[in-house]
């Protein structure tokens, strides 16, 4: 029993340590809600590499593959409904900004079909064993507590690391503004064309996204926090307050971010770590109230990735 308790504490700390490297990668790189076949595995891979640069025992290649697989599988349909967390309003997915369908229809439809259970925030989802158990056919219970239990009590490394991958997926999504500003972005539903940020990030794979060593060489270290919840909350706050999502540019719902400077091409922002970056494109669009072309602000798309590239550079590290 004593062994189990000690082991449990050790493993808890161990998992937290893995997450410290994650949080570092997110605060100082660039990421968001990513493609489950490319971007999620790429970022998860770098999280593990970054962890291995600072902590012992190192995560083995086999363990890393279990984690990466978990980070892919958290996107099993329809788990994604619980991948939103708005830290300003402490809310999960509410179907907002989902194309031409009214918000109440999208969210209400989802709720009605899930036995009166509204989608929960990723902060809740990460620890909600009861709800995740009801997703038995869709990945089942992959909570933080399950990961700890598998490692500390059942000594099942494979399940523990695999489940940790699910948690890392939620952390990665918390760095995507669409996920933290309640901007629904399921392409093909309600006319929504998806998140340009995620579409831009799709190009990053395990083969071409390698930043861990560079970050270590540049002097960056893992950020350590006390609880798993705080990691997620901190990441969500960073992406919510410093970046726009496609449909929430200068949305009155959020006080931040602010355009601090503007020229004929771009609006500029500054993040919580004093990094200056291109926050929006400045373009001209017809205004049918003033009957003239006026300035509008937008993020662009993967064909014109100047703004999105700046976002990724800050959000994925």
């Amino acid at each position, binding site marked *: 029993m004593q062994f189990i308790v000690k082991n449990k504490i050790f493993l808890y700390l161990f998992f937290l340590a893995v997450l410290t490297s994650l949080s570092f990668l997110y605060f100082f790189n660039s990421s968001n809600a990513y493609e489950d076949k490319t971007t999620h595995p790429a970022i998860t891979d770098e999280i593990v590499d970054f962890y291995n640069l600072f902590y012992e025992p190192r995560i083995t290649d086999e363990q890393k593959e279990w984690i990466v697989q978990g980070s892919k599988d958290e996107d099993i*349909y*329809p788990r994604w409904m619980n991948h939103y967390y708005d830290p300003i309003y402490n809310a999960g997915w509410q179907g907002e900004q989902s*194309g*031409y369908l009214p918000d109440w229809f999208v969210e209400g*439809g*989802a709720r009605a*079909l*899930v*036995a009166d*259970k509204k989608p929960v925030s990723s902060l809740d989802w990460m620890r909600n064993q009861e709800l995740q*158990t*009801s*997703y*038995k*056919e*869709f990945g089942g219970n992959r909570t933080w507590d399950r990961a700890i239990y598998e490692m500390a009590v059942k000594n099942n490394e494979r399940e523990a690391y695999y489940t940790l991958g699910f948690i890392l997926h939620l952390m990665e999504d918390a760095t995507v503004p669409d996920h933290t500003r309640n901007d629904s972005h*399921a392409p*093909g*539903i*309600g*006319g*929504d*064309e998806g998140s340009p940020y995620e*579409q831009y990030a799709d190009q990053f794979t395990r083969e071409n996204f390698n930043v861990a060593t560079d970050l270590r060489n540049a002097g960056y270290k893992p950020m350590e926090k006390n609880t798993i919840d705080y990691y997620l909350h901190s990441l969500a706050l960073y992406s919510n307050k410093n970046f726009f999502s496609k449909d929430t540019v200068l949305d009155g719902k959020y006080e931040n971010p602010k355009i601090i400077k503007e020229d004929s091409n771009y609006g500029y922002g500054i993040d919580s770590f004093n990094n200056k970056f291109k926050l929006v*494109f400045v*373009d*001209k*669009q*017809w205004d*049918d109230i003033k*009957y*003239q*072309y006026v300035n*509008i602000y*937008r993020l*662009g*798309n*993967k*064909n*014109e990735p100047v703004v999105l590239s700046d976002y990724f550079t800050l959000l994925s590290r």
Partner: protein
Amino acid sequence: MFLRIARSFVFIIISVVILGGGFFAGIYSYDYYWQWQNRQDLRNLVKSYEQARKNEEARKMADTFGGKTPQETLQMFIEAVEAGDYELASKYFVESKREEWRNSLNSTAKANKIDNFLQPIKLINKNINNNKDIPTNINNYYTIREPILVEFILYPNGIWKLTEI
């Protein structure tokens, strides 16, 4: 006497076991039903969303309003606006923007500002028709930023639709 007491005791024990067993079986059954219901609802949810995706995909495939290049679509849009057919002009936009643009064009026409609206768009049309190097299919998006914003998206049936002006 002893046998009667023993029988009563056994009867009570059996009754408690049956009642307790029934009680716990009820709880278990309720819990099992609740979980089954949740799983069933999730299955329905998955089916509904898949159906919604298929329906939207089918609507896109059936949408033939537009050209095989962004230039063609823009030309069609200009011609419809010049003809005063704002219903048709709005159909060159993606589905989610149609109503907004139909109203906007009608409102602009009532204010006699259609010429102001069309002037920079015609300029763009002239320029892109003169520039043979302009790509027509990169990642399904095509964006013009000068002098105004005009954005297109490629539908799966090969038709370019307007998303922004």
